[in-house]
């Protein structure tokens, strides 16, 4: 990623057929395109996961609901949970990592652009694999944490769990690849002057998240590999007749599972920490503490996993230890909440939709956090665990936290991504419907739980004292459905005909807002030199950053100018109907910037990988079981060959 404008080099023009249309998406190695792919895919799965939730709610609307059978219901909640966590929140996080991190740290792409594309394609194929079960009427039905021995072949002989096990295996590879990529990117591609303590807080939280990813996913990979080997090759890791211990799975799963929940929330925290200062017109309160608390949360997150196992009888010492370590996490998280409040305090608040969702996160995540603390007291949790009280907790943190934060981020960054603003009026409707629907859906679940309603039941009898709450919750879900549809409508409409955003529609502080919207493929014509935490405010409204530390010399100059290098793309008024993208930026070639060559190889490799796993599942198929080994070996060979041709071909057009 050249720093200086070199003399125009002589090289073959990249295959033009990759420059627009479908091919440009299949062959892209541009982090911005890949980010969008993640975004659209995840939103699609949000609709599917949400649809599953709606069916769940309709089934539980009243006593003895009979919309779906027990078998279907079990598949529904399993796939709802799995989808929302692995195919919605995580890829939405990945969407923002991809799009924003290089922009925020002043880079032209991620460290390994092709590996990045590979991550996406593997994710997509894994997601499809996971859902393929529906087509065979055998969607996973073991619950999203698939406790053994229920999920072993002895008790779940169907293909259901096979789809889950292999699907998760594939998704894990994608997350790991992305993790290494972003760790490298953030360490190694920060623009000159972008010290760690100047990184935008979203990049910081993402940085922590990447470490959680690369440290937590190997563990689930092992756990899932064991289950796969048990189911397909008769090993005994979870075979109870061989003396296996069911708690092995539980420990391995939650050792991954708890860090996972912070993987789901930290990016949202990061997004909110970007939105609040901008619409309060104040620098983030206590930036260093925000960074340290994020690190601390990630760190503590590895020491609390057994709080999901208080009912298994671990003994008083383990219970006490895990109870207390769990409580500790309230401290760094609380610091974040209070620092956000302090950021707003004394500011001049603009209630854009993005701001409303950010505030929504503060209001709602706190509720989920508090119920979390209520679980963290082991004896108390013995009355709560596996009831709807837990369901209430994790929807407040996941929907009220992660989803709210991601919505805030979407409204905030949509203009940067598309060059157009999301409609604010629809946005406000979306927010209020979500806020009200969300509380109607999930608040009553606290009472259901305390009144003894177990989770994961497809039917309950009347006169158990659960009817009213369930009805309210179902109505809440219906309102949420409307809210989601409003959002989708807003998204599609604004993408086509929204108001032109211009480079910096919000008066934001960080480097990415100095670029045209959407940014040119090379992002920065000249890699900027960063001299403070808020480089753009230094230019647009220096008074805001007056007492924020700058470069040691106290020098405040920064070579960032709104609209990218030079004046050729200065702020455009909404009356200007041309998309920023259509504005004539000089192309990378004209500027003599070498960008990675588009290539299909990552996609091809990921297909090979998937064929390999399809071979494995064929082993359990009725008609094609004989084919499994050839397909598996074929897929593996295909994968290795495409990998070689990818790795041995240069990333960029050769110069010499």
């Amino acid at each position, binding site marked *: 990623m050249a720093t200086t404008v070199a003399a125009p080099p002589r090289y073959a023009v990249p295959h033009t057929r990759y420059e627009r249309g479908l091919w440009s998406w299949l062959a892209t190695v541009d982090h911005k395109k890949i980010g969008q792919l993640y975004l659209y895919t995840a939103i699609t799965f949000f609709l599917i996961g949400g649809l599953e939730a709606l069916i769940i709610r309709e089934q539980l609307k009243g006593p003895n609901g009979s919309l779906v059978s*027990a078998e279907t219901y079990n598949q529904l909640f399993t796939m709802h949970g799995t989808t929302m966590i692995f195919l919605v929140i995580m890829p939405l996080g990945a969407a923002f990592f991809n799009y924003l991190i290089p922009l925020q740290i002043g880079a032209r792409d991620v460290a390994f652009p092709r590996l990045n594309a590979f991550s996406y394609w593997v994710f997509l194929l894994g997601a499809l694999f996971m859902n393929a079960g529906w087509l065979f009427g055998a969607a996973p039905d073991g619950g999203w944490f698939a*406790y053994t021995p229920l999920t072993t072949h002895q008790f779940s002989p169907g293909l259901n769990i096979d789809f889950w096990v292999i699907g998760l295996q594939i998704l894990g590879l994608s997350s790991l690849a992305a993790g290494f990529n972003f760790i490298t990117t953030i360490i190694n591609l920060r623009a000159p002057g972008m010290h760690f303590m100047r990184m935008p807080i979203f990049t910081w939280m993402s940085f922590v998240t990447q470490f959680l990813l690369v440290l937590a996913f190997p563990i689930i990979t092992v756990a899932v590999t064991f289950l796969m080997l048990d189911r397909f090759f008769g090993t005994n890791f979870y075979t109870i007749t061989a003396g296996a211990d069911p708690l092995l799975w539980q420990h391995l799963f939650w050792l991954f599972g708890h860090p996972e929940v912070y993987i789901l929330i930290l990016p949202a925290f990061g997004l909110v920490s970007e939105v609040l200062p901008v619409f309060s017109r104040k620098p983030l309160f206590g930036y260093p503490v925000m960074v340290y608390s994020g690190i601390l949360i990630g760190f503590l997150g590895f020491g609390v996993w057994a709080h999901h196992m208080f009912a298994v009888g671990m003994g008083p010492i383990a219970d006490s230890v895990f109870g207390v370590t769990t409580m500790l996490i309230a401290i760094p998280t609380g610091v974040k909440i209070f620092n956000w*409040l302090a950021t707003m305090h004394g500011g001049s608040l603009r209630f854009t939709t993005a701001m409303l969702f950010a505030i929504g996160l503060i209001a709602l995540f706190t509720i989920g956090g508090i119920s979390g603390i209520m679980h963290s007291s082991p004896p108390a949790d013995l009355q709560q665990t596996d*009831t709807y009280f837990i369901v209430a907790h994790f929807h407040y943190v996941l929907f009220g936290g992660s989803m709210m934060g991601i919505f805030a981020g979407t409204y905030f960054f949509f203009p940067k991504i598309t060059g157009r603003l999301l409609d604010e009026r629809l946005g406000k409707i979306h927010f209020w419907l979500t806020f009200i629907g969300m509380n109607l859906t999930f608040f009553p679940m606290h009472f259901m739980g305390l009144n003894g309603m177990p989770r994961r039941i497809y*039917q309950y009898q009347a006169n158990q004292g659960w009817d009213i*709450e369930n009805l309210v919750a179902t109505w809440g879900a219906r309102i949420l459905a409307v809210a989601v549809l409003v959002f989708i409508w807003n998204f599609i409409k604004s993408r086509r005909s929204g108001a032109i955003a211009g480079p910096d529609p919000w008066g934001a502080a960080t480097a990415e807002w100095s670029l045209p919207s959407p940014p040119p493929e090379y992002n920065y014509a000249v890699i900027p030199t960063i001299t403070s935490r808020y480089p753009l405010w230094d230019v647009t409204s220096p008074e805001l950053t007056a007492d924020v530390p700058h470069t040691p010399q106290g020098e405040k100059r920064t070579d960032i100018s709104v609209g990218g290098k030079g004046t050729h793309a200065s702020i455009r008024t909404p009356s200007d109907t041309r998309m920023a993208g259509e504005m004539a930026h000089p192309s990378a070639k004209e500027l003599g910037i070498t960008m990675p060559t588009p290539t299909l190889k990552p996609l091809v490799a990921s297909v090979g990988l998937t064929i390999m796993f399809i071979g494995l599942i064929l082993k359990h198929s009725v008609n094609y079981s004989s084919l499994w080994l050839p397909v598996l070996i074929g897929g593996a060979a295909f994968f290795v060959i495409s990998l070689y041709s990818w790795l041995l071909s240069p990333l960029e057009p050769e110069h010499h």
Partner: protein
Amino acid sequence: MTSHYRTRRLAIAALTAVIFAGLAACSTTVPNTTLEPRTDFGRAIDQLWDNLLFWGTIVFVLVETLLIYVILRFRRREGQPAPRHVHGNTTLEIAWTLAPAVILAIIAVPTVKTIFDTQRPAPANALTVEVIGHQWWWEFRYPEYGVVTANELYLPVGRTANFALQTQDVLHSFWVPQLGGKRDLITNRTNHIWFTPESTAVWNGVCVEYCGTSHANMRFKTFVVTAEQFEAWVNHQKSGPAMAASAPAATGAQTDTSATRPAAQTQTPPAAAEPAQASAPSVPPAQTSGQLPTYPADRLPLYAASYNPVPEELTIGNVVGDAARGAQIYRTAPCIACHVIQGVSAGIVGPNLTHLGSRTSLGAGLFPNDARHLALWIKNSPAMKPGSKMPAFGKSAAMPAGYDDQQLADLAAYLLSLK
């Protein structure tokens, strides 16, 4: 701007509305509440809960008030001076690091104390009950008395019950909300939980660890009775099957209690369901139900009665069964491969049927234990309970050799006569 104002108030109103709706729901009949503990264990947990709820509410109110204050106070107004740019304040930040720490300490200390108190070994004189989980029903064994029963748990009030939890297959979890916390049944392990019931009553119990298709249908009933009643019950259970010459029951709809139950349920919450009346069984069952020392099904409070609907497609003609004939059929029936009837059959896969006639419900708390439901159950158990491991034995296209309605009625009559 003012529009913000209105909408914001609306939202807050909505939220509080929800909370009150919930609280209201709380005050109406909540037969499975965790907040009215009836054991020492339950009360210990409840004290922790009150503590957690108190501090949780404080934090909640604090954060939300601050938030609303900031929102209202610092809205952007026209021509308002540019905000002051404090970007940090160490003392403040230390303050709101320490405050939570203090609160957590206040929560942690009693928590740890309760953990150690409630996980001591049970007192020596405790009544040991072995709980064995099966997909999807409960087996209860009283080694002290050599009693084995299923899906209906009897406990003497005032005596500590120490449960030894095991499972035959996958994980399950044993829970009676009013009697205290739950404990998982872990394969290849024996778990323990103990508590002392403090008042006689009948409570619902459930399996709360997802265990497959009919996880939702793995329920049981707990009868906490006086010491004398418990003695009587034990003696009765120890005795062999007493084939009481009960009036033959028809499988017709007229004896179908489930038809009447939903009707009752549509009325205003019946008194029976009020926790106060929930302790009905303190009236010695012996007097209320004729000869039997077991809890009379017809006096079950509504919340504890079992009256799930039977799928329409599953029917049986109105025939009167004959217990004697039923007994004949049973001897050679496939039933004996799985079920125990003391002195008659010795299967171990399914629930013990020795005193089936004296139980209140069928299929782990799903259906009333009457002739019609029992006959239907034998006819096609999987249709009545998804995934049920008991095959269908009724005559059908798939199974021409199966029992016809008359034979089913006879079997039902026989089994029901086993008081």
